[in-house]
């Protein structure tokens, strides 16, 4: 438990202090939303209708571009070798890395969502389901994404490969998350079932992704 919190605290300091990349994902999120809105044009009813799925997909893309950072810096300065060699349970370390990634990327994305939702004229009743689904779904994105980062850590440049590996694995979370956000706005009874399946996907990722990450880290560093 102490090792877990030590790694989370260390990663958060690195992410939020000078040179950390935490705000890059949020900036990217805002820019992609603006690009989409500009491409669609001034059709306010259409934009407002697709705002929830659009915010979900763009939050996913913003997570995607930040994944390469999770193990990269630690690998370059050698601290990853120390972490792997000294940690009693590498799986717990992998959970900590994913948790730190969510706190430094996923949570800021969610905090930025309401502001961007105003830009897209999201209807008032849709904010709650959207934020709730993002809160449940984005930890799953961080867990699966951290696995892809661990898988490619020994490669010099991997962001494109990470995108190819991780996108198919993100699909259930995107479908259930976006589905819950849209259904919840319309008072659709499918809201709860989508939310449950979203929670199940995240929990499933929480069990298997750290195991796979640990195995991938060991294979990469031997």
């Amino acid at each position, binding site marked *: 438990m102490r090792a877990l919190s030590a790694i989370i605290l260390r990663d958060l300091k690195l992410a939020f202090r000078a040179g950390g990349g935490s705000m890059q994902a949020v900036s990217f999120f805002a820019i992609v939303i603006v690009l989409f809105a500009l491409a669609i044009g001034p059709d306010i009813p259409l934009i407002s209708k697709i705002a929830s799925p659009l915010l979900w997909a763009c939050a996913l893309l913003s997570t995607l571009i930040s994944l390469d950072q999770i193990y990269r810096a630690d690998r370059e300065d050698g601290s990853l070798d120390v972490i792997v060699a000294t940690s009693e349970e590498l799986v717990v370390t992998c959970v900590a890395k994913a948790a730190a990634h969510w706190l430094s990327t996923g949570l800021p994305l969610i905090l930025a969502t309401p502001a961007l939702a105003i830009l897209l004229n999201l209807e008032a009743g849709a904010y709650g389901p959207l934020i709730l689904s993002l809160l449940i779904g984005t930890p799953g994105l961080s867990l699966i994404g951290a696995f892809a980062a661990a*898988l490619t850590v020994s490669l010099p440049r991997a962001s494109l490969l990470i995108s190819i590996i991780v*996108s198919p694995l993100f699909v259930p979370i995107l479908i259930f998350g976006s589905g819950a956000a849209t259904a919840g706005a319309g008072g659709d009874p499918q809201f709860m079932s989508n939310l449950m399946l979203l929670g199940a996907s995240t929990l499933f990722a929480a069990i298997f992704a750290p195991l796979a990450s640990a195995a991938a880290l060991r294979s990469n560093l031997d």
Partner: protein
Amino acid sequence: MPNIYELANPVRFERLARPAIPWLAGATVILLGAGLYFSLFNSPADYQQSDSVRIMYVHVPAAWMALFTYTFLTMASAIGFVWKHPLADVAAKETAPIGAAFTLLALLTGALWGKPMWGAWWVWDARLTSVLILFFLYLGYIAVWRAFDDKARAARLAAILSFVGFVNIPIIKFSVDWWNSLHQPASVFRKGGPSIDPSMLTPLFLMAIAYTVFFAAALLQSMLNELAARRLTRLEAAETKTGSVLVES
């Protein structure tokens, strides 16, 4: 029957595989010919779909193979991962492009059938989407093999990815039961026997066996190619090494 450890010797594997390939290739031609004859000429047209039903004989076995090859790939990866069996790794690696081809064939023939039947080339339906994801999983798996120079490391990492991606296989299989799907549910392997007429089952099974035999032939041949390519790399490396030694002396 040699056990899997004896087969780990590439020379022994080659001695068994090389003579088997012409037989498997010949059987593929005969079975595929018979299967296509039954599918295109010697089977009834459907009372609703008319002749479009014949696309099914190409489509359904391809979809079966897409699932079978990914399962095979994962099992070979597991054998390679747990017992460090080098030929199992080669088998997993060489299965991926063949499996991706079957998946693409299933997707394309499905689109060709969907246009006249559903009125759309593509619908975002649970079965179609999960098979499309399977195709991307194959691509990701192939990309991992290509990204790492060290074959042993690539094998381990690709194996881990294949285990994670295996989650998708039951989702594809049961997608037609779990979601209200436009795609028809299982009508051959189901409780209470097939709901398809025997006259349509004959071409279907002939095509399925032809695809399986083709898979065996293509897999063995690409494994032999891969082993030859690795031997060539080793020989070239050895040659450059001795060459540089000669220059130094």
